[in-house]
């Protein structure tokens, strides 16, 4: 078996509003649309993901919060209805997903070997969180690629940002080793919003876009600053600023997915492709891609040649 590789990473935020706006058959709630620019951003991301033809999508979600270590989904098939506890009026989604359990177990083992507390979730009745499902639907609505789902350990909030993000760096590097060891052609998905200031009341018509705008100008300015750095490939500078960004923009990247993804990719200093930016109840959301194949950092080895 050839060594596995990470083909790309996507910043893939999870506002359930985008699923609601799209009206897929899996979601019970119906809308008149809304948040089109972000949904079109995801349309572009879907195309590039399709071209990569990965074996597996790995997603880290801030809405499966665990206290004791980092958890990975470990049941081959999980299905059910995911109702968003915050926006149940918008997101009631019937999901049916396939987990790459072998890779999940390898990620768990590598994380343990790196000194982290890590656990496999084996309960078949487990309800997958809406962050995981939303990101996966938005990037690949066909649900035809196996996934590995990671919980968000609450260390960044429980201890502090520095220690929490250090753990995510360790977890990302462990994830990369697991991908390499199992021969997978993988795509990483960081399910994170940028600035996370939001409104406290919902418009009567949630998709009324005349009500949508950044909740705070400071958050918007921070988002643009970070996106500009990332578009130029100034990854090191973006990560130097990350703690300040988290503090001053209440950025959801504190929960760790963004750091986990970049650590797995080796913090490449390559320009990120911005597929689009928009706000959802005032929060800042960027859909971005770091394509390691296009950047020449990995060979575009087709699946057959990988022996996977």
């Amino acid at each position, binding site marked *: 078996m050839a060594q596995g590789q990470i083909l790309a990473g996507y910043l893939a935020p999870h506002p359930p509003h985008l699923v609601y706006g799209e009206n897929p058959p899996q979601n019970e709630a119906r809308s008149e649309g809304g948040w089109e620019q972000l949904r079109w951003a995801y349309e572009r991301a879907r195309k590039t993901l399709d071209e990569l033809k990965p074996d597996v999508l790995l997603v880290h979600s801030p809405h499966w919060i665990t206290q004791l270590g980092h958890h990975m989904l470990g049941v081959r098939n999980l299905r059910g209805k995911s109702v968003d506890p915050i926006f149940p009026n918008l997101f009631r989604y019937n999901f049916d997903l396939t987990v790459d359990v072998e890779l999940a177990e390898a990620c768990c083992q590598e994380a343990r070997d790196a000194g982290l507390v890590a656990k496999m979730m084996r309960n078949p009745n487990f309800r997958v969180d809406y962050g995981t499902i939303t990101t996966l639907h938005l990037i690949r609505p066909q649900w035809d690629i196996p996934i590995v789902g990671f919980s968000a350990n609450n260390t960044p909030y429980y201890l502090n940002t520095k220690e929490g993000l250090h753990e995510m760096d360790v977890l990302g590097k462990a994830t990369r080793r697991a991908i390499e060891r199992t021969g997978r052609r993988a795509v990483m998905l960081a399910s994170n919003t940028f600035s996370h200031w939001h409104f406290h009341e919902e418009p009567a018509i949630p998709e009324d876009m005349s009500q949508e705008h950044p909740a705070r100008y400071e958050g918007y300015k921070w988002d643009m600053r970070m996106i500009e750095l990332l578009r130029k490939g100034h990854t090191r500078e973006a990560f130097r600023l990350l703690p300040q960004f988290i503090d001053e923009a209440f950025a959801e990247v504190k929960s760790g997915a963004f750091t986990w993804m970049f650590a797995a990719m080796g913090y490449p200093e390559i320009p990120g492709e911005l597929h689009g930016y928009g706000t959802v*109840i005032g929060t800042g959301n960027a859909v971005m891609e770091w394509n390691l194949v296009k950047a020449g950092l990995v060979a575009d080895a087709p699946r057959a040649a990988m022996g996977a």
Partner: protein
Amino acid sequence: MPVVAAFLVPGSPLPRLKPDNIPWGRIAAGYQRAGRAMAAAHPDVILMYSTQWLAVLDELWLTRPRLTGLHVDDNWYDYGDLPFDIHVDTELAHACVAATRRIGVNSRGVNFDGFPVDTGCIVANGFLNPDGSIPVVMAANNVYHSAETTEQLGRLAAQLADEQGKRVAVVGVGGLSGSILREEIDIRSDRIASHDDDRWNRQILDAIERADVNGLRKEVPEFAKTARADFGFKHFHWILGALQGKFYGARTHAYGPVYGSGAAVVEFTI
């Protein structure tokens, strides 16, 4: 006063899922004593607030007449599933949704199949209302609400129940000190995460038992900060609101650790 019983109880599923583990079994036994006290009080409705049901937009109230299912906790799924069958007093819940504007809070009802009822409400209802015969009103913990706002919500809910001629049991679901043990442990030797946390918990429980409301109002903010009390101990303020800030003592049916955090089952004397 319409309130005939009041309880502060933990929302951790561990005592419910694994009562054969001695430290958690003590909490479960305390919960069972509280359940008997609940039954003896013959309430018409339980007003329940759980720190684990998080809201960020508006205040949410369950308005679905009945919720049934199998719940799996995000953290403690290894220990099994939590079946639930919850009957909601929709008349009172709708009244709460309609009335909170009086105190400057926007509310919404939640009436959706498959809504993820939180672990805390399921655990508390399972212990205190095991046959589900007492209808409940469940209110979310809006993370932006202060202790004062939470107290106002509890007071308003109890007043509305009184207007409907109902006898009320009020339940605040949440923990004491919030630090958990962050490594795998031998669960038989579970302990409060630190001596300081343990001291704080005992100090707060002692003040509750003495019904020192003024002292508690002063101490709780420091307790919340120093001992990481579960969501600022807002579940206590929910109870305090429903009791109109007055009770005469309390009995601690159980106190102990749940993976390092503090848990207590407390019955208020009213």
